[in-house]
């Protein structure tokens, strides 16, 4: 049974960097890991230094292709659609050492396909079972957790920038969890790019929402050059603050022991 870690937050909070470094760390310590890009606005594959040959080869793209084929009645009666979907998902997988990558992509279609989503969930669940860890880089709305996986999330990390607005968004994400049918083991807040201490105002917001502040991360001076060049974050030096905090996160949540700490709530 694999352990699922979801990382959520707004763009610019560094959640993709944290997802990539955490996935890379776990892949090194206890492979294999499945890294899932659940935010079409970011490029987790780039952060991981992986190629993505075909930008349309995402779960969203595959679903659209399937819906298109259904609409056009292009499936032969003797073609098992579930089996067809299986193969397409595996084709969409970017396979590397200790770590595979899957992009959720976007789904633009108008159609409403309970059946297609169900088949998709089945394949993704089965696939995820082959990994020690599944790390999902989510958009703040966590659409993929709510719609496409029935899997429970063991650890949810909500990443925020050090602003009151950022924390407010994190609180909103925390509240979203209560509306979802997904069970979440631990939920933690991570405040990134913090100079100095958490302000009393932010502290009140965090406490008021019942959020657990796991760690804070200072601005990482090694990040800017990498981000400018679009280089993989796996090239960050080992003593880089971000990298060190990710090790800290893995330790504090019990991930490195192979089993996450039980729920804090």
């Amino acid at each position: 049974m694999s352990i699922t870690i979801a990382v959520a937050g707004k763009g610019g909070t560094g959640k993709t960097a944290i997802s990539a470094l955490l996935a890379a760390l776990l892949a090194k310590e206890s492979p294999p890991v499945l890294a899932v890009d659940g935010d079409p606005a970011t490029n987790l594959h780039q952060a991981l230094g992986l190629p993505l040959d075909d930008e349309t080869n995402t779960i969203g793209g595959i679903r659209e292709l399937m819906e298109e084929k259904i609409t056009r009645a292009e499936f032969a009666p003797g073609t098992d659609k579930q089996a067809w979907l299986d193969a397409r998902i595996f084709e969409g997988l970017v396979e590397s050492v200790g770590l595979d990558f899957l992009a959720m992509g976007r789904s633009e279609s108008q159609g409403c396909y309970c059946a297609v989503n169900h088949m998709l969930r089945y394949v993704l669940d089965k696939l995820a079972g082959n990994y020690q860890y599944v790390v999902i880089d989510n958009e703040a709305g966590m659409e993929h957790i709510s719609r496409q996986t029935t899997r429970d999330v063991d650890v949810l990390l909500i990443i925020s920038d050090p602003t009151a607005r950022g924390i407010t968004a994190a609180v909103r994400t925390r509240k979203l969890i209560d509306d979802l049918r997904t069970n979440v083991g631990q939920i933690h807040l991570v405040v990134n790019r913090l100079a100095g201490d958490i302000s009393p105002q932010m502290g009140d917001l965090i406490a008021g929402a019942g959020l657990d502040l796991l760690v804070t991360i200072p601005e990482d001076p090694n990040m800017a050059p990498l981000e400018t060049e679009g280089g993989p974050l796996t090239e960050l030096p080992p003593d880089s603050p971000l990298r060190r905090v990710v090790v800290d996160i893995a330790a504090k949540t019990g991930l490195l022991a192979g089993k996450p700490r039980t729920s804090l709530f």
Partner: protein
Amino acid sequence: MSEFHVDMGPQYEGEAIRRENVQVEFGGPKIPHKFELVTLKGLDEVEHEKIEVIGPDIKDIEEGASSPLAILIDVAGEELEKDMEPVFERRIHMYSNYIEGFWHVAQRDDIWIRLDKAAFKKGLNSLREIGEILIFLFTSELDIIEKISVTFITDGEKVKELLPNALTVYEARDARARDLGDEDVDEFYGCILCQAFAPTHICFITPDRMANCGAISWFDGRAAYKLDPEGPVFAVPKGELLDAARGEYAGVNAVAQEKSLGSVEEVYLYSSFGRPHTSCGCFQSICFYIPEVDAFGIVYRDFIGESVIGLPFSKMAGETSGGRQVEGSCGMGLEYLRSPKFFQADGGLRRVVWMPKDIKERYKDAIPEDLLDKIATEEDVKNTDELTEFLERVGHPWVKGEVEIPD
């Protein structure tokens, strides 16, 4: 005690083999020519337990490489029937995945197979052993197979040469599948996937009537039910045929009552009136009654603008959906248009007077030739007044009173 180098059993079914662990890969996206085919032959034509490997075997292939592959399985037995070929062929997928360190994805000319390095190291280094395991599983699980032989071809040229024949066989099977009617089977399937949105909706999936969403055919229903008998797709024993014209089955009624918590008591599979099939929210299209001409129109999800009754699809969908039985407004999979049972109790295709041009084009081989020009599209008429005039002018059989309604 096993005579094989690796273990086997259903516990290995979900096991995927990752790229870095691949000893050898057969088929898949990198290989243009690959297929698997089960052929029923005469008892004197099959040499029992014969295994042949044509082309390089696993041990001859470079580690991590991809190779072409054709799997040809011949079976014979007194009680075997031609229609069992595709069922046995799906078993290749199932049994291959029973093998530890062996992974099989997809079907027909889309197959993708991987062997794990660890299994290779244990000694599984020949397709011959895969053949032995497959024969062992086929014969121990399916008593009716009396003789079976397996041929693996990894010679790319040879696979390419034989592929067209396999494609012809698949096409012939599909043609037979399309001819299958509700009277030919004992079991329908039901689907409650959409009950999250429409709690009283049950889709009845029959050979003549695909699911409303168009995604689940009777064959898909059968496969889904076998894969997950406790899942949202379940078997519906047909039971007694209560009304042949309307397509009312006792078994369907019983399931409708049970799964809709009593809100749907009877379902007519082939009529839009009385007790029509319910509609979820996922339907591909709507067959709607047009009172002005006492006939039907078809509109589908991708149709832009207003249909002939002055409403867009979204608005009409709202009035159709929610798991209710709405007379004269039925969500349906477009493939139902191909069925000879298509709303037969109401006059069938001969009572259809309007449909989008796209749909007419796509289904023109399903529409009787003499009717084709008599069904109006958005290009012919804009409203029901123009429709009435159009139907008079072209002499639509329904308007001329030439369509018989069965009792």
